[in-house]
């Protein structure tokens, strides 16, 4: 049995109904709220959800790589949006990013994040088995 596998219920054709089983992980990465800030700590793409989402996932990739992980090692992700009108844009991007490596995602629309200019934030967990 693999140490990491996507578990789909028998008889279901719905791609969102799944779980991720992990056993004997050698390394875990707990990722804090990742925001669309650049190297100068400035929020990029003010009021531009596309730019902010791109920056958040660039930052997430950089954090994973620095720790010796890749996007494929993500098992769980929380996504916080501050405007429900941004949901379709997020799901479109998410489908592209996670097409071949499903992640247990929770997408929430909240009233605010750590900076009023931040429209999207993600945190999550990755592991290597």
């Amino acid at each position, binding site marked *: 049995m693999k140490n990491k596998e996507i578990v789909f219920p028998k008889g279901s054709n719905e791609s969102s109904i799944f779980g991720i089983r992990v056993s004997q992980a*050698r390394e875990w990465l*707990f990722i*804090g709220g990742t925001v669309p800030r650049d190297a100068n*700590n400035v929020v990029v793409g003010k009021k531009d959800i596309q730019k902010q989402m791109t920056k958040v996932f660039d930052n997430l990739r950089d*954090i*994973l*790589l*620095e720790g010796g992980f890749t996007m494929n090692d993500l098992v769980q992700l929380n996504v916080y949006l501050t405007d429900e009108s941004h949901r379709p844009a997020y799901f479109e991007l998410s489908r592209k990013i996670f097409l071949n490596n499903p992640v247990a995602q929770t997408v929430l629309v*909240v009233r605010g*994040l750590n900076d009023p200019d931040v429209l999207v934030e993600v945190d999550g967990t990755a592991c290597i088995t």
Partner: protein
Amino acid sequence: METIRIRPKHFPVPVAPFSYAIKVIGGSFMFIPNQIPVDSRGQIVGKGDILSQATQVYENLKAILSERNVTFENIVKLTWYLTTRENWKPVVEVRNKYFKDKWPAATFVLLDRLSREDVLIELNAIAIIE
């Protein structure tokens, strides 16, 4: 067990007390659900007083960790929920009394309401155990 705080070289030193991510090699985990500012009789303390509520929440967390001889340095992820941005600073003040320099990966979320009326703060955590 080993923990490594991750910061990509081009990322700025965090302005707030947090880590971008924490890598854990080996060890076991304790998953702590959202804590609210209740005392051991289940009564909400410090109605309308964020300093009292934040302190109670951290004391509850400390009590849970202490049961397994775990300290705040062992917390790798912390998620905290507030109902108003104005309470961010006082909560950080309280938090700084419990964490020294080994900051967890953290997420702050602002919500309209929390699980119970009169609750101004909730937080949950993941800690590592030797």
